[in-house]
């Protein structure tokens, strides 16, 4: 009775559209009403309430999981329209955690066995959406029966459901697979497309198990005219062909036929994609495919253009000639409106880069970058950087040009890739000696520009520039201007850690200048007043610039500022003396010489395997507890008072102390951990012994710091240019400077997306494929040949499982080992952890979260 006064769905919708109260209050009112109505015993009321609720849930995102039981009640009604409403609600809201899921099994079974085919279809549809393992297990016999039903409509749906059932409950394969294969031979195109669809999904999960069915697929490929079916078949074949190369040869013929004959662009695209990805060894097919791609590229339709570029990028790794043929189309696509098209064009262009055209292509790209929006601009920059730095800059011949390109990039208004450019500047400085003068020139240009200081994306570049200028100051043309740039007041805009780098560079420049001043004094007799003036000026400028920083808030900045000022304080006296500079005992002189020594030690890249190259000398025990080290080395570890520098009371020269202590520590065997941590270490080592390095620590006999550059014979192999090569001489090209490469096949820092390792799905697919194998065995009982094939497949399968597990373990071991090998090279270790984390990010299975 209350049905008459109940608001129907239409009323609800109308009410929603006309209401003035506000969405959420209207929805909550409606929800209250629904809650009341849904508890009624009358099924009509209930079903209308459920109907309204499912509308709210679907369109407005209201949670309806509380109504699960009511949905079940509605479904149990015998009236069709109630059933329909109920099933729709269930399909929408049930998920794996719904508590009443157990109760639905019986209802589904009843409906699956019903005479009315529409009820059957409702139930099948529902099963396909909410199927869990238990449901699949319990209902697979019914599904099996339906697979052989006389009504094609039902059969078709059952086929669709089968995939979900297989997914959740692999044992169902034994039961249902035979019928599925039988359906392959059906004449009804709808069923055929459903079956082929199922096989398509199965093939993507595990191609080897579907291989025995290849002959049937081939027959359909040749006969069928239905585009939907053909597209699915092509997908199957592309998966199968990658596993079984002989298949490719047979299939190439019909595929080419289809490509030539069909009008449907979707089919053409699928053919092209199949040919290019899996059949790339067949020249004729590939040529035809490339011709079709060309047609796509010249179309106006942006869809086709995008797809053409996409197909070309799939083809690019093996068939670069195809890309080169279509070069103009690709470059034109760079200026297209559509960002997708632009990105694809950019990737293709990057694939085309070689030694000869790298400068030309970069020029074009820089022009585009200036004109485009920030997102694309940064994409261009990052792709140029990654391609050029691949394999330790193997593509670059002219480093001067590349360094100036880096400087140019910093000036592009939208540039946000400061860290990468910073890394490359420093990296090139360390590896390529010949490029250092140009590097210093470019850095100087960047440093004196006050506008760049305001842009926070460029701060990393500025820090690299200042470091480079300090480290390689001997190449600088005018240290005075450099220092002015480094202490300009606008540097206040920089964050403290970069200011600290600035101050340290100032220090290095100062040491260099003082040293040259003092050595000039020693060599020439008198001192010219201009030189004296200039050095005094320099010192004054630095003092004025750095003085305010000695009270800075940041400790790093403050400490460095104080170091510089202390040094200046001491040096000033000696400059002021001007006389008796023949006296080599002048403190400042000695100190300066000492400092310059310290700074002249070259920092270079360190190989990841450097530690392993150093062998442990005899008599050196590395595994013993270092507790009694204090007795041996106690006298070395007291604070330094004697030694060369006698001015400890005068200046807080922390740097020199540190230096001396470093040397002494290096001369004693190893750095000493306190007693307890070493015993913990031993314990840890016992438990996780296999993850520890076999040999550790560097050779104490070599001079304090680890090997900067590998020994000569290694370096010789790195030299890429044969100086006697006549062709080179004839071209008068500037010979490529030596790039120090320490790791063979160095990893690229900027990792592009790595292939996802389907390790987690291996075990599931294993059981599925094993079942399919066994089902196929049963199928072809009579034919002995297939039996042997099946057997060998099974055996192969088992071998594969053991093989798959072994590389898994060794991969894990390798990863741990790499983490332990963190070397002392600053940049290496930093970047390596970044690489590790970025690769880990990629390997997370991509759930849509």
């Amino acid at each position, binding site marked *: 009775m209350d049905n008459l006064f109940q608001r129907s769905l239409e009323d609800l919708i109308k009410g929603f559209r006309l209401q003035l109260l506000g969405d959420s209050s209207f929805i909550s009112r409606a929800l209250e009403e629904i809650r009341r109505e849904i508890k009624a015993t009358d099924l009509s009321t209930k079903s209308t309430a459920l109907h309204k609720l499912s509308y709210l849930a679907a369109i407005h*995102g209201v*949670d309806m999981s509380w109504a699960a039981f009511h949905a079940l009640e509605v479904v149990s009604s015998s009236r069709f329209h109630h059933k329909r409403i109920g099933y729709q609600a269930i399909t929408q809201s049930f998920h794996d955690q719904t508590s009443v899921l157990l109760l639905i099994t019986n209802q589904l079974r009843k409906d699956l066995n019903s005479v009315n085919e529409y009820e059957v279809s409702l139930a099948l549809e529902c099963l396909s959406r909410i199927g869990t393992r238990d449901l699949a297990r319990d209902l697979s016999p019914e599904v099996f029966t339906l697979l052989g039903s006389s009504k094609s409509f039902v059969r078709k749906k059952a086929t669709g459901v089968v995939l979900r059932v297989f997914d959740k409950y692999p044992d169902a394969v034994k039961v249902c697979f035979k019928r599925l294969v039988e359906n392959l031979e059906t004449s009804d195109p*709808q069923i055929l497309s459903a079956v082929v669809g199922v096989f398509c999904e199965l093939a993507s999960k595990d191609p080897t198990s579907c291989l025995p069915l290849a002959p049937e697929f081939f027959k359909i490929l040749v006969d069928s005219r239905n585009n939907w079916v053909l597209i699915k078949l092509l997908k199957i074949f592309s998966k199968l062909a990658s596993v079984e190369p002989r298949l490719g040869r047979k299939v190439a013929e019909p595929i080419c036929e289809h490509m030539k004959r069909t009008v449907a662009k979707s089919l053409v695209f699928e053919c092209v994609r199949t040919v290019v990805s899996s059949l790339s060894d067949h020249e004729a097919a590939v040529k035809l495919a490339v011709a079709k791609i060309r047609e796509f590229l010249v179309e106006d339709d*942006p869809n086709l253009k995008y797809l053409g570029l996409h197909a070309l990028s799939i083809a690019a790794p093996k068939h670069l000639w195809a890309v080169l043929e279509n070069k103009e189309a690709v470059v034109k696509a760079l200026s297209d409106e559509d960002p*997708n098209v632009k990105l694809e064009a950019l990737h293709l262009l990057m694939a085309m880069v070689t030694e000869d055209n790298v400068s030309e292509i970069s020029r074009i790209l820089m022009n585009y970058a200036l004109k485009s929006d920030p997102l694309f601009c940064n994409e261009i920059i990052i792709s140029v950087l990654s391609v050029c730095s691949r394999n330790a800059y193997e593509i670059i011949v002219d480093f001067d040009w590349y360094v100036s390109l880096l400087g140019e990039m910093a000036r592009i208004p939208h540039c946000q890739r400061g860290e990468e450019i910073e890394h490359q500047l420093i990296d090139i400085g360390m590896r390529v000696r010949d490029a250092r003068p140009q590097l210093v020139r470019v850095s100087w240009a960047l440093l004196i520009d006050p506008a760049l200081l305001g842009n926070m994306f460029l701060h990393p570049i500025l820090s690299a520039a200042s470091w480079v200028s300090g480290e390689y100051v001997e190449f600088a043309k005018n240290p005075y201007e450099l220092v002015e740039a480094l202490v300009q007041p606008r540097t206040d805009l920089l964050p403290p850690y970069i200011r600290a780098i600035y101050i340290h560079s100032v220090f290095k420049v100062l040491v260099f200048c003082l040293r040259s001043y003092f050595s000039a004094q020693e060599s020439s007799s008198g001192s010219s007043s201009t030189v004296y003036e200039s050095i005094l000026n320099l010192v004054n400028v630095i003092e004025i610039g750095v003085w305010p920083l000695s009270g800075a808030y940041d400790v790093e900045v403050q400490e460095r500022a104080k170091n510089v000022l202390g040094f200046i304080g001491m040096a000033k006296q000696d400059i002021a003396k001007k006389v008796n500079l023949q006296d080599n005992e002048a403190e400042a002189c000695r100190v300066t010489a000492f400092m310059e020594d310290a700074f002249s030690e070259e920092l270079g890249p360190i190989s990841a395997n450097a530690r392993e190259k150093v062998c442990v000398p005899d008599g050196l025990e590395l595994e013993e507890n270092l507790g009694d080290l204090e007795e041996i080395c106690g006298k070395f570890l007291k604070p330094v008072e004697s030694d060369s520098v006698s001015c400890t009371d005068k200046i807080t020269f922390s740097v020199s102390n540190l230096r001396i202590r470093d040397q002494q520590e290096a001369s004693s065997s190893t750095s000493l951990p306190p007693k307890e941590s070493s015993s913990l270490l031993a314990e840890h080592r016992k438990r996780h012994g296999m993850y520890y390095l076999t040999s550790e620590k560097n050779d104490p006999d070599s001079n304090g710091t680890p090997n900067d550059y590998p020994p000569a014979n290694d370096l010789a192999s790195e030299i890429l240019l044969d100086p006697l090569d006549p062709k080179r001489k004839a071209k008068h090209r500037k010979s490529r400077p030596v790039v120090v490469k320490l790791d063979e096949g160095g990893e690229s820092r900027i990792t592009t997306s790595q292939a996802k390792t389907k390790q987690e799905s291996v075990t599931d697919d294993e059981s599925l494929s094993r079942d399919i194998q066994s089902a196929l065995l049963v199928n072809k009982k009579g034919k002995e040949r297939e039996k042997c094939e099946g057997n060998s497949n099974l055996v192969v399968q088992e071998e594969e499982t053991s093989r798959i597990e072994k590389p898994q373990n060794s991969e894990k071991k390798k990863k741990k080992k790499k983490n332990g090998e963190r070397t002392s090279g600053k940049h290496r270790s930093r970047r390596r952890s970044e690489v590790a984390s970025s690769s880990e990010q990629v390997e997370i299975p991509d759930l*849509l979260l």
Partner: protein
Amino acid sequence: MIHFVLLVSRQGKVRLTKWYSPYTQKERSKVIRELSGVILNRGPKLCNFVEWRGYKVVYKRYASLYFCMCIDAEDNELEVLEIIHHYVEILDRYFGSVCELDLIFHFHKAYYILDELLIAGELQESSKKTVARIISAQDQMVEAAKEEAGSISYIIAQTT
């Protein structure tokens, strides 16, 4: 496979959603928000495919409605465009010159039609006539059931 189907109006209002992969309610609303933002901002002349979170989303605009389908990276986008068009043609045939209001007020019918068209994320019926036939048969069943429920004898039977 198709992971979900989404119909969004030009103003960002959701008209229909159908999910073929497990998503919680929160995830669903998040996805809808994100995707509407991306698709509604695209210009008219751009291509109909968007890369999103590693998946591809194919969308097509009909009048003021955007029909979006999210597919795996290996699927054929042109095929999915065909599927969208197929769906729209069936809707048109069923409602007779369908407009957005039809979908608003008869959203459950749009669902039923979609259920006939796609199952478990794959296309199951590529013939428009068959789909129309099935839906009308089901409608007749619903009508018959309703009539029976509304008949006087039934009401009497209920109350006694």
